[in-house]
Structures are given as C-alpha cells and as structure tokens.
C-alpha cells in the first residue's frame, strides 16, 4: 500500500473488508432482536459496491457517492438499504449543490437529517441514527479519526441499554433492552474502518 492510493476505491475496500469479516456477528445481533438478516443485507450491498469500485473511483466524488447510494438502495432492501442509501445520496447531492463549501463532512448534518426523516426516527430510538449523530458531532468538532471511531463505537454500545422505538426491534418492547442494535453496530464498524483508512492514507 502506498499513500498515493486512490481514496474512494480504498475506502470501498476497507468498508467491504470490515463487513465481510463481521457479517456473521451482525446477523447474530439481528437474530436476537430482529430477523437475522442484517449481516447478509450489508454484505450484499458492500459486494455490489466493491465490484464497481474502479468504475466508481473514476467518477467525480459527488456522482460517485450518489451512485453508491443508489447501488445500496437497489441491492440491500430491508431497512438498511434506504437508510444507508439515503445517507450517501444526500451527501453526494449536498456536495454537488455546493453545501458546506465542498467539504465532505460538512454535508453530514443534512444527510443525517434526511436519514432521520426517511426512518421517522430520533436520537435514542436504538437505531443506526444514534451512531450517525455521534459521528456527526465528533466530525464537526474536528476530532481526529481515531477519536471519531471511538465515539461511534461507544454510541453503538450505548444502544444496548435502550428500548427500541423504531425498526423490528421495537416489536419486542422491553425484550429489546440488553442487546446492541445491529444497524448501530454496522454503522460503528464502518466508521471505524473508514477512520483507520483515513489515518493510514490521509487524503491529499
């Protein structure tokens, strides 16, 4: 590996790898309080994106992000598809529209808000949003990557004690308490993987 490695394909590889090695664990989390498919759902999505990584790497970043989002939406299905898809589509659109002066992380607040609208969810509902909000806070106060990753994982752990109000886990009522939310976990894992990559290969 070398520092001139192209950013997007590298990030895609990193995300693909972390999902591949954690798919079973995500499935198990989802089996406890959902329907057990979050691992295979995320894997299906990440594999399609991975297969297109070179082509995606050749696109301008806004288009690439939108394209990734659309790929996720059309391959994942379930709850994860529209949510992760919306996040990336909105970041791409934000960038293209010149939001946040073209700084990628500055597009996060509006993209996360779009995810919350799509999911009709709030902080504390025990979903991947709880991690997204934590990441957004950390990023906006310009925490270094390692710290952002730590915030994300800690937010995911915080979902353990929550009672789910959204998603399949909400059907379990109090029985959802005591388990980490699978979407929060995948979101923290992806964040960690992205942050590690950015530390190793800081973008020019």
């Amino acid at each position: 590996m070398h520092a001139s490695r192209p950013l997007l394909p590298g990030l895609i590889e990193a995300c693909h790898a972390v999902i591949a090695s954690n798919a079973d664990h995500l499935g198990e989390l989802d089996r406890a309080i959902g329907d057990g498919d979050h691992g295979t759902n995320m894997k299906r999505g990440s594999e399609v994106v991975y297969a297109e990584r070179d082509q995606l790497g050749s696109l301008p970043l806004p288009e690439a992000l939108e394209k990734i989002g659309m790929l996720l939406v059309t391959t994942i299905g379930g709850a994860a598809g529209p949510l992760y898809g919306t996040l990336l589509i909105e970041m791409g659109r934000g960038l293209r529209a010149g939001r946040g002066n073209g700084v990628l992380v500055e597009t996060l607040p509006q993209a996360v808000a779009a995810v919350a609208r799509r999911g009709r969810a709030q902080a504390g509902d025990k979903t991947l949003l709880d991690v997204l909000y934590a990441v957004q806070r950390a990023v906006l106060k310009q925490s270094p990557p390692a710290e952002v990753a730590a915030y994300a994982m800690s937010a995911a752990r915080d979902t353990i004690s929550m009672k789910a109000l959204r998603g399949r886990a909400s059907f379990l009522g109090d029985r959802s308490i005591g388990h980490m939310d699978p979407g929060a976990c995948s979101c923290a894992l992806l964040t960690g993987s992205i942050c590690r990559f950015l530390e190793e290969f800081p973008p020019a």
Partner: protein
Amino acid sequence: MKKFMNGADTFVAESLDGFVRAHDGLVMFGPGRKFIRRTHLKKGKVAVISGGGAGHEPMHVGFVGHGMLDAACTGHVFTSPTPDQVLAAIEACDTGAGTLLVVKNYDGDVMNFEMAAELAQAGGRSVDMVFVNDDVATEAAPRSTGRRGVAGTLVVEKIIGAAAESGMPLETLKRLGEKTVAAIRSKGVAIGGATVPGGVSATFALGPDEMEMGVGIHGEPGRARSAFQNAETIAGLLADDVIRALVAERGRDVLLFVNGFGSTPASELYLMYGAMRKRVEASDLVVARSLVGSYVTSLDMAGLSVTLAVLDATGCEFWDAPVLTPSLRWGH
C-alpha cells in the same frame, strides 16, 4: 438444516420461477423478474400492488390475479424488496387510474415502498399507500413503529382488490383500505422457529414443552415464552387478546381466519379454528366468513395465528367477490 433447495443464494429466484411456471396463464414475470404480475391487466382500474420479503409464500405472489393484486414484488428472505422493483411494477400496472400500494408496517417495507412511490410521483403518476398493522402483540406507543402487519394483510388485499376491480377510484380505495385495516387484528403463537435458507439453526429454539406467544412472521421471537398448553387454552389466549383489541360491538359480523405459519398441518389448523370459533361466538360476535390455511407463512415455522376482521355489508360483499389467483379462488 435440510431444505429443498440448491443453494441459499438461488432459493428465492428458483422458487419464484417454479411458481410462475406452475401458474402460467394466470401470472407472469415483469421485465428483469423484478415483480410478478397478472397476465391480463384491466384498463382504467386502479392498480393494487403489494410485496415484501420472501418467506411468506403463498403471500404475496399467490394473491396476484383477478379480484386481488395486479403485481407483487418479492425481496430476499425476510427482506423488503427494493424501490426499483416496486417502481417497475407501478410502471407496468398503472393503466391510468393510479396505484395503491398495500404495505405491511415494517420500517424496511415502508421506506422502500415510499421511495418507490416518491419516484413514481416525481414521474407524474398517482400513487398512494395503505399500511397494514394488525398484530396485537405489538402495541402502538406514541412515537414508535407501532403494530406490525401480519396475516390480516390477506384480508386487506382481498377487499381492496375486489373494490378496485369494481372500479373504485384511488382516493376512495385508500379510505376503504384504511377503514379495513382499522377493523382487523391478529395474534400468533409459535411452537418452533423458522430456518432461514443458509442459516445453521432455527431463528429461535424452543424446549419440548415451550411455546412463544405473540410472534410475527419473520421467525423473530415473540413477546413472551411460556409453557405449551392444550388447544382450548391456546385458542383462549389468542382469541381473547384479539377480541379485546378489536373493540367491536356485540352482534357484529366477523371474518375468522386461522393461518398456519408453514409447517402446521391442516388437521391442527381446523381443530384450532373450531376452538377459536367457540371463543369468538361466546363474545357475541357472529362468524360470518371463515378462512383456514397456511397463507401468510414464516418459512417453515411451526405455529399459527388467528385474525379477526369486522365486516360491514360492503366488507362482506368485497370479501365474497370473485377472486382468481394461484392461492385464493372463489365466486366465479
């Protein structure tokens, strides 16, 4: 786990392929196999489209045909279909009077169908949605996903399908759908978990004397585990909860639907139907219509659910209306 399949990856596609071949003439694949539609569309009728994760067969594909659905979109096992599938179905089946999407209340299903609806609307089409939420095991809190949709979905699709066939316009149809949903409640019990293709074990394991009360149709755990009981007792536990949640006045006509989850034999479903019917009649409701069978399943889960739907005269009429689909047929 022993399953009749060639591999987990091809399970859904091969099963749907067999389904379409077994019922060709009645149904066909849409372009790219993104959905299954009825062979002959009716011009000027509101298109009624549903769908959801695979694993609930014969729902929804088994309900495609005259008097019920125009198309059904199937996702991966227990995973909502994607917006492009639903959009393709809308584009194929909208013959000018708009489309009503019948969606079970799961966040995944809601979001994917909603994205499709938005895309179709952006393309200038009239699309509306009805959300089914009949499971009393999942009570609605002020700020939550609410009750999930289970076997009552069949009833909504039948009644809406018949009404659409009769020429009812989109807005009225949506109102009828909402009214129908409001008058349906269900509850399920499992005596064994589901085994997902490719999975190594059942979604939950029960002891030889245990049952899981308040289960849905995704092999997920229910609300409480308890000791297995005889038929009378289980019928009481299910029917009483459903009757209580229905808040129907005495003397009302109801549809009693006993639904198997996939591996419960017909003999046991009929026995439970008899036991439930006694309970329902003891509550001064009139069982005016009945349905017994494994229509809304959870792969090979062992167990069943009971659904009650209050039917007014219109409801009875649309329930009785002719239906000609792979899995429901009457009245021709």
